[in-house]
C-alpha cells in the first residue's frame, strides 16, 4: 500500500527518460509519409500508422518530448517570476504597488481567450506559447509568496536580524527564501501540468505549432477524420495519446500526495461502576497517551457536589487534555480508565445526548472562539433548549443587557462574551461545570470580575466546579481543594483556610 504513493514519481521519471533519449531510438521520422495510411499495429509499425501514413509510435515518442519540454520550460520561467516578484512585492512596499497591480489585472484576464487571440494573429509557434504562458501564469502564486513574505517580514526573528544590521539581500536569502521551498515545489509541478494541458488543448483545436509533433496535434488530426470511429482504427490512433496524456497528468497531480496516517478503530468498551462514587464526578485510573507518549498516568480523583476544585500545572503538563478527557471528548483509543458523572460514564455512546449541558457544562478557554461568528447570540442560547425568557434572565444575571442576544459575536467586546459564556454554562443549572483556563487571556481587572462572577454563581447554584488554570494565585484563592498535575501524576495539595 505504501508503494502506490511512489508510483507517480516513478512514472514521471520514465516519461523524462523517454523524452530525453527516446527520439534517438525511434524507428521512423515522425513527419515522413512513407508508409500506407491506417496500417494496423505490426512488427514494423508497433502502433500502426495514422491517416497520413505516419508511424504512431514515433509520433508518440516525439510528442512526449514536446510536452515535457513545454511543461518544464514554462514551469521554470513562471516559478522564477513567482519567487523574484513575490519576494520583491512582499518585502518592498514600493515594488508591491506595481507588481500587485499588474497581478490583479492578469488574474482577471481570461487566459484562454487571450491565448486564442494572440495565436490567431501570430500563428502560434512554440516559443510564443512558452513566453505567453510564462507571463500569464505567475500572479496567483506570486500572491501566495507575497503574503508569506509579508507575514515573515513581521516575524520577530526577521526584525531581530534587521536590528543586528542584516541588509535586505541577506534577510531575503537567509531568513525568507528557505520558507518558500514547499510553495515553489507545488507551483512548479502545477504549472508544469497546466502548461502541458494548455499546449495539448490548443494543438487539439488545431492551433498548435505545425512544426512540432505533439499529442494534441495527433488528436487533432485523428478527430478531423470521423471515419476512423467506424472501424477499430481509433483504438491505435486515438487511444495512445489520450492514455499518455491522462497518465502524465494524473502522475503530476498525485506527485505531492502522501499517505495519510491510518486511524485507530473504535473499540467496544466495557463500563464498570466506580465504587462509592454514585453521586460525584469521579475520575478512575485514567491513563492518556498520544502516539505512545504518556500524557497522564493512573490518575484518580473525585469532585464532590458543590465543591470548587482547581487543577493546576505548568504549560504542557496535560491540563487541557485532561479537561477534554473529562468531558468525554477524547477518542476511545488514546485513553483508558473511566470518568463518571453521578455514575454515568462518558464512555457511554449516548452520554453526549443525555448529559451535555444538562448534567455537565463546559466553559471554553477563549470566549471569542467559542461562539459561531455567523449566528446571533440569541440563537446560540436558544439551541441548548431554553425559552427566550430564560435566556434573557440568564444574561441579566451576569449583568449584561438583554440587547446582547440580538448581536453577532463580533459586535461584542471580549468581556461581554466571557460573561455570556458563563451565563450560557449555568443556564440549564447543571450539576458539574468544567472551566478550561477561562481567565488566561484576560487582563487583571476583567479577570477579577469574571472569576468573582463565576465563584458567586457556583455557590448560588451549588454546582461542582473543576477549574483548570495555570494561574496559581486564583487557584489557591477560590478553591476548596487544589490538584497539581506534574510528571504525568496528579497530587492533591492540602490547604488550610486563612
Amino acid at each position, binding site marked *: 500500500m505504501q508503494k502506490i504513493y511512489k508510483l507517480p514519481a516513478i512514472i514521471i521519471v520514465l516519461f523524462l527518460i523517454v523524452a530525453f533519449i527516446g527520439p534517438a531510438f525511434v524507428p521512423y521520422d515522425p513527419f515522413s509519409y512513407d508508409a500506407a495510411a491506417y496500417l494496423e499495429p505490426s512488427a514494423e509499425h508497433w502502433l500502426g500508422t495514422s491517416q497520413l501514413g505516419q508511424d504512431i509510435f514515433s509520433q508518440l515518442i516525439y510528442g512526449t518530448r514536446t510536452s515535457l519540454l513545454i511543461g518544464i520550460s514554462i514551469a521554470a520561467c513562471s516559478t522564477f517570476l513567482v519567487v523574484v516578484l513575490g519576494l520583491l512585492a512582499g518585502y518592498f512596499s514600493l515594488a508591491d504597488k506595481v507588481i500587485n497591480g499588474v497581478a*490583479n489585472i492578469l488574474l*482577471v484576464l481570461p487566459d484562454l481567450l487571450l491565448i*486564442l*487571440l494572440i495565436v490567431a494573429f501570430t500563428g502560434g509557434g512554440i516559443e510564443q506559447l512558452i513566453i505567453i504562458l510564462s507571463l500569464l501564469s505567475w500572479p496567483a502564486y506570486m500572491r501566495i509568496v507575497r503574503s508569506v513574505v509579508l507575514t515573515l517580514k513581521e516575524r520577530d526573528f526577521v526584525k531581530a536580524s534587521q536590528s543586528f544590521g542584516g541588509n535586505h539581500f541577506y534577510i531575503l536569502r537567509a531568513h525568507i527564501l528557505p520558507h518558500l521551498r514547499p510553495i515553489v515545489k507545488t507551483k512548479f509541478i502545477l504549472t508544469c501540468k497546466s502548461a502541458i494541458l494548455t499546449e*495539448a488543448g490548443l494543438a487539439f483545436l488545431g492551433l498548435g505549432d505545425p512544426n512540432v509533433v505533439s499529442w494534441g496535434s495527433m488528436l487533432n488530426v485523428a478527430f478531423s477524420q470521423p471515419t476512423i470511429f467506424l472501424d477499430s482504427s481509433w483504438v491505435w490512433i486515438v487511444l495512445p495519446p*489520450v492514455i499518455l496524456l491522462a497518465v502524465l497528468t*494524473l502522475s503530476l497531480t498525485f506527485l505531492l500526495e502522501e499517505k495519510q496516517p491510518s486511524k485507530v478503530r473504535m473499540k467496544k468498551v466495557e463500563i464498570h461502576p466506580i465504587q462509592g462514587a454514585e453521586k460525584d464526578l469521579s475520575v478512575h485510573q485514567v491513563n492518556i497517551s498520544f502516539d505512545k507518549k504518556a500524557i497522564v498516568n493512573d490518575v484518580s480523583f473525585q469532585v464532590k457536589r458543590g465543591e470548587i476544585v482547581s487543577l493546576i500545572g505548568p504549560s504542557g503538563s496535560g491540563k487541557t487534555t485532561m479537561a477534554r478527557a473529562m468531558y468525554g471528548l477524547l477518542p476511545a483509543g488514546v485513553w483508558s480508565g473511566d470518568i463518571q458523572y453521578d455514575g454515568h460514564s462518558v464512555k457511554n455512546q449516548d452520554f453526549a445526548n443525555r448529559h451535555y449541558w444538562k448534567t455537565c457544562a463546559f466553559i471554553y478557554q477563549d470566549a471569542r472562539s467559542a461562539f459561531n461568528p455567523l*449566528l446571533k447570540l440569541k440563537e446560540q442560547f436558544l439551541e441548548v433548549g431554553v425559552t427566550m425568557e430564560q435566556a434573557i434572565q440568564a444574561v441579566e444575571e451576569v449583568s449584561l443587557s438583554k440587547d446582547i442576544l440580538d448581536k453577532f459575536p463580533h459586535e461584542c467586546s471580549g468581556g461581554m462574551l466571557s460573561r455570556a459564556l458563563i451565563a450560557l454554562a449555568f443556564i440549564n443549572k447543571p450539576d458539574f461545570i468544567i472551566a478550561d483556563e477561562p481567565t488566561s487571556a484576560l487582563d487583571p481587572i476583567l479577570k477579577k470580575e469574571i472569576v468573582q462572577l463565576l465563584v458567586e454563581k457556583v455557590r448560588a447554584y451549588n454546582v461542582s466546579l473543576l477549574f483548570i488554570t495555570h494561574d496559581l494565585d486564583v487557584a489557591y484563592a477560590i478553591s476548596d481543594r487544589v490538584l497539581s498535575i506534574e510528571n504525568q501524576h496528579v497530587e492533591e495539595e492540602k490547604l488550610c483556610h486563612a
Partner: protein
Amino acid sequence: MIKKVVSLYGFVFVLLILLNFFLPRLMPGGPIEYLEGLDSGPVLTEEQKQMMKEYYQLDDSLGEQFLNYIQGMLTFDFGNSFIHKQPVTELVFDHLPYTLWIVGISTVFSLALGILLGLWSGWFHHKHGDRRLMLTMMALGALPEFLVGMILLLIFSVYLGYFPMSGASTPFLNTDSWWGVMVDSIHHATLPIISLTIISVSSTYLLVRNETIQVIASPFIEFARMKGIKHNRLLYRHIFKNALLPIFTLMMIRIGALFTGAIFIEALFSYPGIGKLLKEAVLSRDYPLMHGLFFVFSALILFFNALADYLYPKLDPRVKGGTKVAKDL
C-alpha cells in the same frame, strides 16, 4: 467596494478591446503579410486576403480605423463573417442559446453534486469513503476538458453507441411532435453536459470539503458539540452555513470557467454553440466573427467574476457594513 470592482474589471475589459484592435495592426507588415510570412500559420486564399483588406481598412489612418472599431462595438455591429457570409451579431445570437443551455445545466449539476459530496466527505473526514472520493475527485479535476470529453465519447458513443457522436440534433429527424424534438436534443446534449459537469464538480467538491473540515475543526463547532446540540442542527445551522459562504464566489468563477471549457467540449462534440464557432473563426482567421465572439466571451466571463468579487463581502455578516471585527479583550 462596487467602485473598485467596476474599475478593475472595466479596465481589463478595455484592455482586451484595445489588444484586439492593436495586436493585428502592430504585427510587422500588418496582419495579412505577417500571417503569409509565417511558416507556422495557415494558408490564406486570395479571396480571404481581399476580405481581410476590406475588413481592416488598412489604407485609412489609424485614428479613423479606431473610431470605426469603437463605433461598431457600441452598435453591436461587428461586420459580416468571412466564411458564413452573414452578420456576426446574427450568428452569435443563433448559436448562443446552445452554449447557455449546456453551460447552465452543467453549472446547476456540478454545484449541486459538488456541494453535497463535499459536505458528505468533510463530515465523514478520516473515514475511508472520504479519502477514496477525494482521490477520485482530484483525478477528475486534473484532467483537461477535452480529455474528459474524449474518454466519455470513446466509451459511450464509439464503443457502446449509447449517444450520438456529434451535433445538437439528428438531421432529417422523422418526428413532428415537440416531445420527440426535445428527447433528441437532450440525447445530443447529454455527453457535453456530463463532460462539463465532471470538469467543474471537482473544484466545487474540493473547496466545500476543505471548508467543511476547517469549520468542523474550529473551536466554535467543538463548543457547539459540547453544548449537546442535536446532530442535524449542528450539521445544518452550524457547519453548512459557515462552510458554504465561500461557495458563492466559486460559483461565479466556475461559470466563467465553464464558458472557456465549452470551447473545447463544443469543438470535440461538434456542438453548435459559440465555443465551436469561436474555434472555427480562429482557425480560418475569420476576423470579424472572432472579434464579435471575443467580445461576448470576455463580457460574460468578466461579468461573472466581477459579480463574485462584488457579492462575497455582502454575504459575510463580519464584513457587512464595513464594521471591523472587535479585537479588544
